[in-house]
């Protein structure tokens, strides 16, 4: 019985550095396995779409530019993603990965959350197609 069981720690705390992390000013390296932003490597992708099938939050879309030539563009919605890494687990070709460097994803702009992965020319092609709907459709007779 007694009072002041905390006395030792209280006095010690006064002379030690605060445990508070000075986050924006002092940054610590994230652990290797941190699940941050999803990174996609279009070179290895086979277009099996297994990642999309098991995504709990519909965060991934795969846009097929040319299936035979294995040209794919991935549209990734970082705001929908729950960072569970199930897609990474599902991928048999290791073309998906979760970055441990890009995890400060806050943005005031909604557009920043929609990320396009793929070869530049494919993305451009898709964007162009989106800008002129119906351009590459065969003309109706």
């Amino acid at each position, binding site marked *: 019985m007694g*009072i002041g*069981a905390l006395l030792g720690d209280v006095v010690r705390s006064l002379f030690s550095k605060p445990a508070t992390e000075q986050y924006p000013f002092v940054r610590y390296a994230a*652990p290797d396995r941190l*699940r941050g932003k999803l990174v996609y490597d279009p070179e290895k992708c086979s277009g099996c779409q297994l990642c999309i099938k098991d995504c709990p*939050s519909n965060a991934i879309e795969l846009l097929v530019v040319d299936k035979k030539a294995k040209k794919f563009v991935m549209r990734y919605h970082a705001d929908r993603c*729950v960072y*569970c890494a199930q897609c990474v687990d599902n991928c048999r070709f290791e073309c998906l990965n979760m970055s441990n460097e890009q995890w400060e994803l806050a943005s005031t702009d909604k557009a920043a959350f929609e990320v396009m992965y793929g070869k530049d020319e494919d993305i451009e092609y898709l964007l162009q197609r989106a800008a002129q709907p119906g351009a590459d459709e065969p003309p109706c007779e």
Partner: protein
Amino acid sequence: MTNSSGEKFVVPIGPQHPALKEPGQFQFTVDGEIVTGASIRLGFVHRGIEKACESRNYTQDLYLLERVCGICSHVHATAFALGVEKLAGVEAPPRAEAIRVLGGELERIHSHLLWLGVAAHEGGFDTLFMYTWRDREVVMDLLESISGSRVHYSLNVIGGVKYDITDKMADEIRRGMDFLEERTHYYMKVVTTDDTFVGRTRGVGIMTKEHAERLGAVGPTARASGVERDIRFNAPYSAYKEFPINMIMDTTGDLEARFIVRIKELFECYRLIREILDNLPESDLTVKVKRRIPAGEVISRVEAPRGELLYYIQSDGSDMPARVKARTPSLCNWATISDVAIGHKLADMPMLLVGIDPCFSCNDRLVQVNRPNQTDLNWSWDDLRRYGIEYYR
């Protein structure tokens, strides 16, 4: 305290109140400082997760169910994964089971330390609150380095686990456990010897064994009253068969006993984690599970940090469950508050509330609406609307 018209003086705690971290309403009728009546109203954070499970496949459900609770997320996923594996007739490899248990015990440490802090805060002991939460960071960081996330670890997949424990990580965890064990001894001392704190806990909210059994209490709340109820011990699941646990009991049944049971459980966690790390079986991490789960139904029980967690899963042979039902430990423990509260001081109420380590969003699962004078269960939109207006009038 009654006013001139003889009306009762009711102190409402919630839905929004500094003592509550989640919305729930407790109405305490007081006479001066003495509580003479208590009622509980829940359901402010019903999210319809059970229903949502029926429109997603098993893998997606795993992540959805993990989000039932922010503190015991791993346990929910484990319970679900174990149930689905049973339905599919597979068993996860021994190493995967061991890692599941390891994750579960690390989570228990984080949950109990969090609870210790919150309970101290409710008792106005903010320094203890700050210290426990500071030390809790150690276990949070360990979980982050194992799984890649501090809260929703996503360790489980159907048929195993995603992440392995490397030797380097094992050493890190051992170091963390050593540090935490030393700190926990210290907290034990503070909680059981500091007069001001003991004055708030000893002899407060006493629940006898018979009482606890009648009310169906679970988890540390029940064990503090001497009820032998721990799924890890009574019906070992996963790797608890290979790594048995000692059940921590106390017989006093007051708030102090709940502190002691939870803190002693922390020591048991440290011991078990060290044992698992020393004897981690070698095997694969996953077994293949077909997407379509054979038709059938299963009940899966695990011990969450707060008590027994029960999952009922029904499959119709497709890749989506036909019905998922979760019964969380908090739901079993509510009755102990309203029953025990009467006769205590108003100042004891926050600590009594927190004594069961309540999790509101966990248990607001189902809303049953009984229509007066009618047996028809199908309600039209208009009916519901009218009912809502009447209800909140």
